[in-house]
Structure formats: structure tokens, C-alpha cells
């Protein structure tokens, strides 16, 4: 029989049939929907995926999947090849990465049981393979007919009770700290399903009228509480970048978004056991920067910490995250002699680099990410401590501020703190001291490290003398001057082992590179625990 079969079927036909069927499956939601997508200046799901991966490396999975029947005819009649999603694996700059992408051309990328099972598969496989994954989001939320129809009253697909399988809400926390997770939002995301992209380590949003994300949509807010708000006020990329601090970066086009993802991936290891990749640069490791000396002589309020960062990192390239949120603190990635490091820096140019709730949340999360993925940390300090505000206290400053020292004390990666300007009012403990586990504390000679206000200190310490002095005013002034000269200096700080060395600002870069090189085998074990209980 088999012999007979191969005689009647042409092998070329089999392959041709396969290819034709495959092409059909890739057509998505049809010509009209595709044209609509292009009209919004958006790429198609597969175009985005192809752009992300090195040419010809993308392997798609579950292209053939179709949604379950819902019991609603108008949905069941539709042909949804792949159920409005594309998942698979490939290589980004030669390194393996998993991907999932919503296909907006099919029923506006709405999420169903089968689509969730595909997306969850991408996340869970990434954990198993120990490689990062990227989620490209473009979906109008839950497919109501699917949610309210039969699929969810059937045994859940890849749901609970199936061993290691998770679902789209369970898998991101399960992967957190094991592999880097990145979400790229190039379309809308509604309601509860927005949580899935936000739970990733990094979220990149496109600035566009078609991209927004809010938990409750403006019409519902109006209907329930009568409040008039627009999408731009509560859900646009800019709102999430500047006000809510939900998104890490904002991009202008699909292409830029994908380029940004690739650049971000280049800084990161594939998983928590690996070290970040070293990328050779032509910037000499022993390069000294003349300008830094001049900068160090400026008053704090006249400096932008970005200038200092750019002068010490490889080729001046700094990948800043959350640049528009809590600008008094700068965080981001850079390279020192090709080696990735996370930079956490006060910016005295904004709010005098003061510490507040948003600053703590932003920096603590960044530090914890770096610690998860073996990325050493460099702290640049120039801050006069906490904001003094009743509103901040009322909003829970203690609770939020405590996250930052927690994150520093918990981290076991190499850590370097450099005092570049002022440091007072508790700022030292928010930026790491040796007693908190920082490995190297350096200071520029012009820095001041004192938790004490000289005037107050003199009033208290010389209380008796002040009372007895012939000319108390003169005595006080003299003491304050002496206090400033002797006590509020880095040399006094050195004597007290608050700093390990006082260095020429020009050699900051070589010092960091030398230290990171020598500390790279650092190992530190924390007491065994399920997890800590960071203040939230």
C-alpha cells in the first residue's frame, strides 16, 4: 500500500502544499485588517519579530493553533490562524531569545485561552532554556466571548494543577530574577491584562495615539464615579514615563522600540547564573578626564550628574532607564572597559538630588535587577538628603525610603560608591556605605561627607563654652569655621573609615575599571531564606 501511495503522490506537491498552508496561516486577520494596521503606522506582528532577530534565525511555534470554540457564533465563524499571536525563538546578536507578539490584525489581538497558552509557553520555555524573552504587546485586552464562553469553564489550558505550567499572570513572577524579561508596548493594553507586561523587568512604550495602558478605561471611570479623564491623562506613554513611573523608556517608532530592546539585551546576561557579556570598546581603560577636576570644583547646584557619567563610561555611552521619572536620581547601564555596570546617581541639578518616595522606588528596583543578574553597581553621590515635606511623610516616606537601603544591603554584586559633591542628611545611607556592604568607597577631595549641620553641631558641642565666652558670636563663628575646615572634609571622613580612599577626580574611570576587574570573582552568601520581606 505504502509503495502505491508514494507512486501516486508527488513529493513536491506535499511540500508545496505545506508551504501554501503555512503562508495562509501567516496572513493574519486579512487584507483589510493589515491595511488598517499599516494605516496606523504600525508594523505587523511577524515583521516586528523578524526585525528583532538576526536574519533567518526565527523559529515560530504553534503557528497552527486555533482558538477553542466559544459558543458564540460570530466569533466561532472567524478564522484566527495562530489565535492572534506569534511565539517562537531565535537569536539576537547571536544570543538566543524567546519572543511572543500579539497580532492586532486578528480580532484586535484579543486574548483567549489558546493565546494565553501560547504566550505562557514562551515565558515558561524561556525559564527552562535559561534565556531572556521579549513580549511585544499590541492587544485590546481579554476576548470577552472566550472568557465568558466555554473555554474557561472547560479545564483551563496550561492552567493550574499541571505541574510546572503557569499562566500569563503566574509566569512572569515565576521567571523574575531567573531570566531577564522585557516588554515592548507597540499597541494598546487594557485592564487586568496590562499587568502582564508591567511585571517584566523592563517596559518600553511607544509614544503614539494608538498606545495606551490603564487599569480602568476613561469611559468606565466616567460611568462609575463620574470623573472626566482622557487616555492622555491616565494612560499614554508619557504619563507612564513621567508620572506613574511604570514604563522604563519611551520610543517614537516600532523600529526604534525594537532597536532599544536589542541594545538593552546587549547589556544583560542570558540568566541569573551567567555574567553579563563583555563587549570590547576602543575607549582606553586608563583614560583620565581633565574636565572632571573642573567639575569637581563647581558647586553642586551647577552640575548635572550626566556630565560626570558620560566622562567616565566607555565612549560616553549611557543607557539610562526611567529618564523622565524622579529625575533627581539617575539610573542606567554603561560599560567600563567593556564590562556592564549599573549606575545609580543623585542628580543635584534636579531638586538638589534630594531623596523622596519616587527616587527610592526607582533606584531600589534598578539595584535589585542588577543584583539578580550579576551586574556590578556604581553609586555616584551628590545629595543633601531627604525632602522635607508633610505630603511625602503622609504618603509613607519611611515605607518607601526603606526599600533603597534594603536593596543595597541585600545585593551581593561588587559595589562602588563615589562621593562627588555634597552628602548629608542621611544621603550616605541611601547610597551605600561600607557598613552596608559596599566594597569600595571613594571620594573626590572636594566632596563633603557629613551628616551634621556645622552650626547646629557647634551650638550643641560647645554649649558650655558659648555661654561662658566673652564674645559668644565671635567664638561661635570661629568654631563653625574650624568645624567646616576640619570636620566637614573628606580627610576627616577618611580618618573615620567612612571612605577607603580620596582620589583625583580625573582618574575616576581608571579607578572604577581597576576595582571592577579585581572584584569580579566576588562571592557573598546571604542567610538561607525563601525571600526577604522588603518594605512595600
Amino acid at each position, binding site marked *: 500500500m505504502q509503495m502505491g501511495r508514494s507512486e501516486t503522490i508527488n513529493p513536491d506537491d506535499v511540500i508545496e502544499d505545506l508551504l501554501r498552508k503555512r503562508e495562509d496561516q501567516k496572513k493574519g486577520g486579512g487584507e483589510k485588517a493589515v491595511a488598517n494596521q499599516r494605516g496606523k503606522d504600525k508594523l505587523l506582528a511577524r515583521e516586528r519579530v523578524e526585525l528583532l532577530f538576526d536574519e533567518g534565525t526565527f523559529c515560530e511555534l504553534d503557528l497552527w493553533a486555533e482558538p477553542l470554540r466559544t459558543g458564540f457564533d460570530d466569533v466561532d465563524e472567524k478564522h484566527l490562524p495562530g489565535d492572534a499571536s506569534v511565539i517562537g525563538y531565535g537569536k539576537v546578536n547571536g544570543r538566543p531569545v524567546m519572543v511572543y507578539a500579539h497580532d492586532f490584525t486578528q480580532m484586535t489581538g484579543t486574548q483567549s485561552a489558546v493565546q494565553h497558552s501560547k504566550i505562557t509557553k514562551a515565558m515558561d520555555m524561556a525559564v527552562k532554556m535559561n534565556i531572556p524573552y521579549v513580549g511585544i504587546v499590541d492587544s485590546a485586552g481579554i476576548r470577552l466571548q472566550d472568557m465568558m464562553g466555554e473555554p474557561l469553564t472547560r479545564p483551563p489550558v496550561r492552567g493550574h494543577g499541571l505541574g510546572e505550567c503557569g499562566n500569563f499572570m503566574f509566569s512572569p513572577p515565576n521567571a523574575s530574577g531567573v531570566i531577564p524579561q522585557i516588554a515592548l508596548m507597540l499597541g494598546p493594553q487594557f485592564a487586568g491584562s496590562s499587568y502582564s507586561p508591567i511585571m517584566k523587568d523592563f517596559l518600553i512604550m511607544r509614544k503614539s495615539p494608538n498606545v495606551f495602558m490603564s487599569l480602568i478605561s476613561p469611559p468606565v471611570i466616567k460611568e462609575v464615579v463620574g470623573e472626566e479623564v482622557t487616555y492622555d491623562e491616565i494612560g499614554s506613554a508619557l504619563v507612564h514615563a513621567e508620572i506613574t513611573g511604570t514604563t522604563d523608556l519611551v520610543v517614537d517608532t516600532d523600529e526604534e522600540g525594537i532597536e532599544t530592546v536589542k541594545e538593552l539585551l546587549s547589556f544583560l546576561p542570558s540568566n541569573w547564573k551567567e555574567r553579563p557579556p563583555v563587549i570590547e570598546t576602543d575607549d582606553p581603560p586608563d583614560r583620565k578626564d581633565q574636565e572632571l577636576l573642573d567639575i569637581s570644583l563647581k558647586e553642586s547646584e551647577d552640575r548635572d550628574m550626566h556630565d560626570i557619567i558620560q566622562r567616565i563610561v566607555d565612549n560616553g555611552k549611557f543607557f539610562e532607564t526611567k529618564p523622565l521619572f524622579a529625575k533627581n536620581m539617575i539610573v542606567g547601564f554603561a560599560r567600563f572597559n567593556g564590562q556592564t555596570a549599573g549606575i545609580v546617581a543623585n542628580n543635584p541639578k534636579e531638586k538638589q538630588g534630594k531623596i523622596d518616595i519616587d527616587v527610592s522606588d526607582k533606584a531600589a528596583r534598578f539595584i535589585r535587577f542588577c543584583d539578580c543578574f550579576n551586574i556590578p553597581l556604581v553609586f555616584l553621590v551628590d545629595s543633601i538628603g531627604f525632602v522635607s515635606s508633610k505630603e511625602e511623610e503622609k504618603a509613607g516616606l519611611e515605607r518607601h525610603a526603606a526599600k533603597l537601603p534594603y536593596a543595597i*544591603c541585600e545585593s551581593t554584586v561588587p559595589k562602588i560608591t563615589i562621593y562627588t559633591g555634597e552628602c548629608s542628611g542621611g544621603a550616605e545611607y541611601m547610597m551605600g556605605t561600607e557598613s552596608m556592604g559596599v566594597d569600595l568607597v571613594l571620594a573626590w577631595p572636594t566632596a563633603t561627607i557629613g551628616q551634621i549641620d556645622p552650626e547646629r553641631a557647634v551650638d550643641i558641642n560647645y554649649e558650655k563654652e558659648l555661654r561662658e565666652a566673652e564674645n559668644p558670636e565671635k567664638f561661635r563663628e570661629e568654631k563653625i569655621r574650624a568645624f567646616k575646615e576640619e570636620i566637614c572634609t573628606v580627610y576627616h571622613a577618611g580618618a573615620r573609615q567612612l571612605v577607603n580612599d580620596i582620589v583625583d577626580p580625573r582618574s575616576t574611570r581608571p579607578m572604577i575599571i581597576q576595582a571592577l576587574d579585581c572584584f569580579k570573582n566576588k562571592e557573598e552568601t546571604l542567610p538561607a531564606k525563601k525571600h526577604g520581606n522588603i518594605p512595600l
Partner: protein
Amino acid sequence: MSSFEEKWKEIHEHAQKLEQGGGAETIEALHKEGKLTARERIAKLVDQNKFQEIDLFGGAYSTGFDIDDSEIPGDGVVTGYGEVKGRPVYIWAQDATVLDGTMASNHIKKISIVMEKALREKVPIVGIFDSKGMRMQDAVGAHGHFTPGMMMRFQTLASGVIPQISLVMGGCVGMAAVSARLADFLFMVKGTSYMTVADPEPDSDEDVKEIGKPEMHHKHSGCCDVMAKDEVECLEKCRSLLGFLPSNNQEEPPFVDTGDDPQRRLDDIMDIVPASPNKAFDMRKVIRLMADNEFYYEILGDYAQNLTTGFVRMEGRTVGIIANNSIWRMGCMDVDSSGKHAKFTRFCDAFNIPLVYLSDCPAFFPSGAEERKGVLRHGCMVIHATSEATVPKINVIARKLYGGACMVMPVNFTKADRYVAWPIVERGVMGAPGLARVTHLGKMKRAKTQEEKDNIFKEALKIMEERVKIHSIATNEAIIDPRDTRKFLAEALRCTQFKVQERAARKHENMNL
């Protein structure tokens, strides 16, 4: 008299003098304020005569200033160990009679020492704050290691290993406030305690005591877990809380024979819970009813009242309760309740305390202000914490569970071990009218007349009402008689007590903060 006795007498007298702290006058002043001394507090916290002080002798390090001439007993802090309800606990307490309890080098070193011991010996630690801040004379020359940084380092290392409790019973300012909040639970006393991170602006009329008062921290900032009406109540409540907790993360919570029948039927429950979905009721009444001996230890009671968290015992075993409460915002989740939920969940998970949920949540609270405060980011903390928790998670859906709420009150999405409902349950993405509108948008648009449109909607509504009904019931593992809730929970907790859930190895997670 032998020389042994002589020596003992000499030392004993010296110790007694040191134990007087700043002396009779300062003690009297403290009592007048309604405050106890550090040692009186410790005596009330531990079982009778069960406190061993350490590092009493020594005093402050010299500073080079006039202050060196004065006596500074114990450098303003009492440290040691004792027993609470027969179980060991480390304690340190700042002594306000000694230079206002100001923090100096040896003071901080003494605290760090007991923190390290507690961590190494895997015993809970209670810190009593009563200080006006850093001691200026000492701070000028203090060594880098005798700083709050050291305390915070130990607190962080110990986090999730041993329970840590801060009792703020006086002043707590600056970095001390940050350190106090690093503990798992923070208590404050009405009228006598205050806590702020930053100094108020020099020109402002605001007083630190006013800004940082317990009422503010308990109701608005969410920094004060338990507010006591006086010092005695504060210490009593701390003892009570310790009774619920295991000594460390490798131990099961202590068992206490409560004698309450696990089969007890909750006949009064029908009077508490209104069947109408839009009527509010106080969920805490339900919790008390079902708990052993009707005892509920609430955490953060006055903060984010739309969610109540706390401890009860079921068949003598500690259980963490997380329940929506319709008395505020109809039980909707929001930014504040998210933080409260996530922190409590993570504590229970770290210390092997099973979680019981009582759900009655219509949604996340719809408001522009909440969105701009970052409700998405905060909601993620809860989902993260709930997914991550590997202790038994048992959810009783009392009334409503709509939309995103089913991620934070766990069902299958975030892997609850049991999720059952009372017969009045309502579940789904949204109500039937909303579903009818959204799913038939196209058809309604294409309708030629208003009548036709209305008919389409009416038809759709009928279908959707039917679907919601099926969905509400069929998405639960079982429907139980509310009066049997206690019986159900007791059996479910017994059945899940050996639960093990492995997670992929990692240093730690990177949750939204």
C-alpha cells in the same frame, strides 16, 4: 564575707546604679509623660523575670567634647534576650532617660550585636525606639561602622529569616525611622510616640511630633501596623503577635490548643452578610466568627480599610487572613490596599503561615487619580507576591470577584490551592450589560432603527446574563454553605499542610516596587 560575695555585691550595686539610667528625676519625668522606662518596658514584654541583659557595663565612647565628663549608663540603650510565652526573643530598648536616648557609637554597636546574635541564633528580635536622634557630640568623630548603616545591614540580612518587630514608643527620627520600618511590623503608641524621616523645614511651624504622630502613620502613611492606646497595651499586643509567629523561617508557627470546635457551624453569618451585592458589610465580623475563639489580630487596621489583613488561629494553627472589606470603596482594590496586601502576603509566605482569602471585590477602584498614582505598578506587587507565595492559599469567594480582582484574590490565575464560593457568588470580567454592549458593538452599529438596536441588545443581554450565571458558578472548585465556612477551612488547611511547591533557583525576585 568571702571575697566572692564581696565582689558580687560590689558589681551588683554598680549594676543597680547603671540600671537607674539617667536617675530618679528623669525617670519621674518620663512617667509623667505616660511613658515607661526602657527596663520597665522590657519587663512587661517578657515573661516574669525572664530577661538577661548584656553589655550593661561600658558606657559611651569618648568624643573629645564636654559630654565625656557626664555618666552615660549603657550608652542609652538596653540590650539582651528573654522569653515571651516561653519562647526566646532578643530585645533592645533605647533608654530615654540617658541623654534622651540619643544614638552614639557604642549604642549602635550594642544594637548591632543583638541583631547579629538574633540572626545567627534564629530568634525573633524586638527593637524599642525612644530617641531624639543621633548624638551630635559622637557623630562628629564616630567611626564609619558605628552607624545606622550597620543596623540596616543586619536587618536586611535577617529579613525573611527571623520575625523583626519595631516598637516606636517615643521619638524615632531620621535614619532611625527608616531602620524602624525595615522591620516586619511596626507599633506606635498614641500620644507619646512620633516618627519622621526628614526634619521639618526650618521656618515651618510644624512640629515633628505633629507630623509624625501615630494616627497619621496608622491611617495615612501605612507605616504603623499596630497603634496602641498606651504603652502597656502596646507591649501586650507585641506579646500577642509574637504568639502567632514562628521563631524563624525554618519553623512552623506555634500550635496553641484553643479548644474551639473546627466543625462549629456559623449560624450568625446570614445576619452579617447581605445577599444584595450592593450593600456594604464589615468583613471583619465574618473573620471573627470563623476564627478560633473569635479572635482576630488585625494588622494596619485603619489604613486602606477596603482590605483587611491579620492573623487568626484555625484549629490552633496560625493563619494569615486577607479579605476585601466593602465598608470602604465597596472593597475595591487601590494603590494603598495593594501595598498592604503584598507586604502581608510576603511576610506570611516567608514564615510558613498559610493564607486564607475572603473575596468580595468588584474591581480596582476606577479613578484618574489612582491611575496617575501608578495603580498598575502597585497592583503588580500584589500579583507578584501572590504568585510567588508557596504556602497554602485558600480562597473563599464570599460575594463578588470581578476583573483584575481575581488575580489578587487568587483563583486559578495565581494558583490558589482551593477556591470555593458561597451561593451568592458573582464572577466574570464585568457585569452582563457591559458584556452585551461590548460583544455586540458591531451588530448594534449596523442596526437600521433604534428598535432593532434595542432588540439586539435585549437579546444579547439575555444570553450574557445566562453566561454570567454559568461562569459565576462553574469557575469555582465548589460552592459551599456559608455556615460551613469554618469546617471547610479547617479541613482544607489540614489537607494542604504538607504542601511543597518548588520554584526555579535564583538570588531573589525583581518585583515592582
